[in-house]
């Protein structure tokens, strides 16, 4: 058990025992190992709690099962059938309703003093955010697979590459929405303050991204407003990928997704870094 860096317990009365100075790891090596440490902690918690895995997916599943069949013969103005239009939208909805609430966990942890306890350690501030976000991405991908598999059972047919691209968008979207959610949770004091903010942002964003029905059905003014919503381009990109078209629409989706990730992560890290936050 005893290695050179773990001094054995001294007996009562000895003078101060100074452990050998631990070499300070390089910043990037520390970031990677800290991130995986935080990732592992929250992944274990999510797996053992189970509830988080079910929570976010219920709503998209209900839409798929109880709303999807209504669209079968409705002209939606896009390529492919109704499932190729609906399931990509539901993948984005999953992100909105699951990743956007990721901050809830940190609110509970703040009440137990866990966040503060970690902030007093030398752990990388960036890792405190990235480790959690990485866990959210894994969780969201598992949920996405479930959603697509149920979709296939209901009649979805889409190229494998297109579906994988769709999962890629889920990952990027989770990175941005979860970062924003954590940033918000660090700034507010209670779930009572947190939930109304997320809800009041989520609903208009969802309606303006064409998640349930494509925005090509919208009148000009509504279509115009929705062009200011970055998620619109990601919904379009996933739909495009699901019908095997990997051209400009997907490219536009990637650009907006990466832009949103950059802004959100920078904002998230700033909040995590701020002393006293």
């Amino acid at each position, binding site marked *: *058990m*005893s*290695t050179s*860096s*773990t*001094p*054995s*317990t*001294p*007996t*009562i*009365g*000895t*003078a*101060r*025992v*100074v*452990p050998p100075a*631990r070499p*300070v*790891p390089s910043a990037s090596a*520390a970031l990677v*190992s*800290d991130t995986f*440490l935080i990732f592992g*902690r929250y992944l*274990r*918690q999510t797996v*053992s*709690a189970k509830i988080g895995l079910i929570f976010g997916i219920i709503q998209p599943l209900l839409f798929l099962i109880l709303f999807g069949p209504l669209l079968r013969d409705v002209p939606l103005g896009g390529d492919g059938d109704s499932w190729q239009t609906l399931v990509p939208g539901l993948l984005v909805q999953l992100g909105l309703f699951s990743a956007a609430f990721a901050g809830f966990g940190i609110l509970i*942890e703040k*009440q*137990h*003093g*866990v966040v*503060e*306890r*970690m*902030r*007093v*350690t*030398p*752990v990388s501030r960036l890792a405190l955010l990235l480790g959690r976000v990485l866990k959210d991405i894994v969780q969201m991908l598992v949920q996405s697979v479930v959603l697509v598999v149920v979709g296939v059972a209901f009649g979805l047919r889409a190229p494998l590459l297109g579906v994988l691209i769709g999962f890629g968008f889920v990952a990027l979207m989770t990175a941005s929405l979860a970062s924003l959610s954590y940033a918000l949770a660090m700034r507010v004091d209670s779930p009572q303050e947190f939930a109304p903010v997320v809800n009041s942002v989520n609903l208009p964003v969802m309606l303006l991204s064409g998640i349930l029905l494509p925005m090509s059905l919208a009148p000009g003014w509504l279509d115009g407003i929705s062009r200011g919503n970055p998620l619109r381009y990601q919904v379009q990109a996933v739909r495009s990928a699901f019908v095997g078209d990997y051209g400009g629409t997907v490219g536009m989706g990637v650009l907006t997704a990466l832009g949103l990730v950059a802004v959100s992560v920078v904002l998230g890290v700033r909040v995590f870094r701020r*002393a*006293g*936050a």
Partner: protein
Amino acid sequence: MTPVIHTTGLARTFTTKRGTVEAVRGIDLTVPAGEILGFLGPNGAGKTTTLRMLTTLLAPTGGSATVAGHDLLHDSAGVRRRIGYVAQSGGVDPAVSVREELTTQARLYRLDKADARARAAELAADLDLLDLLDRPCAALSGGQRRRLDIAMGLVHHPDVLFLDEPTTGLDPGSRVDLWHLIRRIRDEWGTTVFLTTHYLDEADALADRLVVVDHGRVVAQGTAHALKTEYAGSPNASLQDAFIAITGRRTPAPSETPIAV
């Protein structure tokens, strides 16, 4: 010997909608290595704000400080590596096991996996937590929880351990046990202990030296014996009387509400 904590004019102001609030106006403090320091003050005196600055949770807006050999303002990462902090609320997740919390904490201080496991077992043995390692933290009694909280602050052999009102909410028996533990930490490892408390009997029994703050400044310091003699007129007077003479108030309030940033 170089002091473990040395501050000069350490200050913090908060800007609120109604103007600027000087929570800490300028704290001059010197804490030698191996001391148990009791940090006292009435509600709103700046106790919590000072503690949060010394533990890197809050950036000072004035003054300078060295903590555990590192500059607080320019090397907070260096300070973090050498200090332990136990908040009043602790800091463990009730759903997580004692073993996992201790191991994770050691890993946050960059011990490798094997060392972290060994250190968790070593501390558990030392702080009488061995039988509880695989229990969730929620299953622990008040006294056990406090011992775990303190173990969490010791995983990396810190030079100085900050304890924020460590015995609040404990039954009298557990309080006395915790006093013994705190003394043992100092005696065995030479760890400097900086503790805030609102129990004057605790400060009297436990601390080598007391620092009383009020209105954001140090208003008195010395051994309990010296403070009683100077402010209450006799070494046999109660610390309560000395405290009233110093601050004009009856007792340090149980908890100071930190001003929101």
